[in-house]
């Protein structure tokens, strides 16, 4: 049986299997169709109907259940997460599992299209070591991403000494996993 205890391991393995079968486009289609529109349809429904309030309802219990160490900062205009210990990437690192080129892309792979459909855009950065941050705003809000420490104060993951380790992948007002640039 394929179980849920080590889900992140076979999930990551599956990305590479799909890439070999159908290339990058098949992996992107998987994140959108299988994860956004099927597996996580409850998230899609909540956020589509309730916006930022739905994000609070979805990510609160989900991240707690998964054992994440994170901080959430929410105003009327922005939903921010500072992920200090991603349970998903942490599982892969702890078990030495790496088949796919960048596991962290899967989050933008399904959350990006979900937010696009719900009318939001995403500023995001991940460092491939289990740390990342997200700021999600309505698409007609042109406010740029916050400077380190200004929105989530001491909880800002960018203030960690080893944040750039050695580089991050950065997204600006994005909804597509391919919209990233590397930052050293």
């Amino acid at each position, binding site marked *: *049986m*394929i*179980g*849920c*205890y*080590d*889900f992140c*391991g*076979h*999930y990551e*393995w*599956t990305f590479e*299997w*799909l890439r070999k*079968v*159908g290339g990058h486009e*098949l992996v992107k*289609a*998987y994140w959108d*169709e*299988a*994860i956004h529109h*099927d*597996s*996580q349809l*409850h998230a899609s429904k909540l956020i589509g109907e309730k916006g930022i309030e739905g994000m609070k309802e979805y990510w609160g219990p*989900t991240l707690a*259940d*998964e*054992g994440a160490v994170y901080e959430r900062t929410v105003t009327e205009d922005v939903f921010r997460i500072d992920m200090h210990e991603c*349970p998903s990437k*942490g*599982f892969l690192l*702890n*078990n030495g*599992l790496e088949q796919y080129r960048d596991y962290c892309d899967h989050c933008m792979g399904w959350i990006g299209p979900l937010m696009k459909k719900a009318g939001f855009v995403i500023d995001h950065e991940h460092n491939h070591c289990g740390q990342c941050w997200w700021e999600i705003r309505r698409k007609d809000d042109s406010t740029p991403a916050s400077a380190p420490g200004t929105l989530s104060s001491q909880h800002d993951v960018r203030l960690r000494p080893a944040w750039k380790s050695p580089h991050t992948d950065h997204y600006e007002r994005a909804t597509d996993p391919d919209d990233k640039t590397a930052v050293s």
Partner: protein
Amino acid sequence: MLAADKVESPLPYTDTKPVGHADFYFAVNATFRFILRHHGEEALRKYWQDIGRSYYRPVAERWRERGLAGVADYWRAFFKAEPGADVEVIEAEDETRLEVRVCPAIRHLRAHEREIVPTFCQHCYFVNEAIAEAAGMTARVCGGNGCCTQRFMKRTTDLPSQNLEDIATAS
């Protein structure tokens, strides 16, 4: 988790949490549906066989080293970490048998009214058989759709092959 703990676990990949998050069964089911929709039944069977031979290779290595007792140890640890599972692992002289009284995946998918891929239960046969083959064993599945019997035996030539009609359609 200490490295020594990982060595002692019958599971090849370990987490800091004792039990997995059941909502991940949604993604497992959705993955099967996606592969089926895009590439068909044969591709889905190949996915199951490939994941058994590749991702679960460390499981096969342990089964090969420890025999049917290692199979039993693996499944006891496995189902202890799957939320909602009710499974008895029986060690007989010539086989290790799982009596799955409550399949945790089917249970959770049903509880959340998810549409279950009809061939969902076949994945247990194809994945198990791929792991077992690499360990010099073979696997058979009978039943499904929430409860089933799974058997693991030494690989011999006189065993009848798996009849897929013995595996129930999931719903």
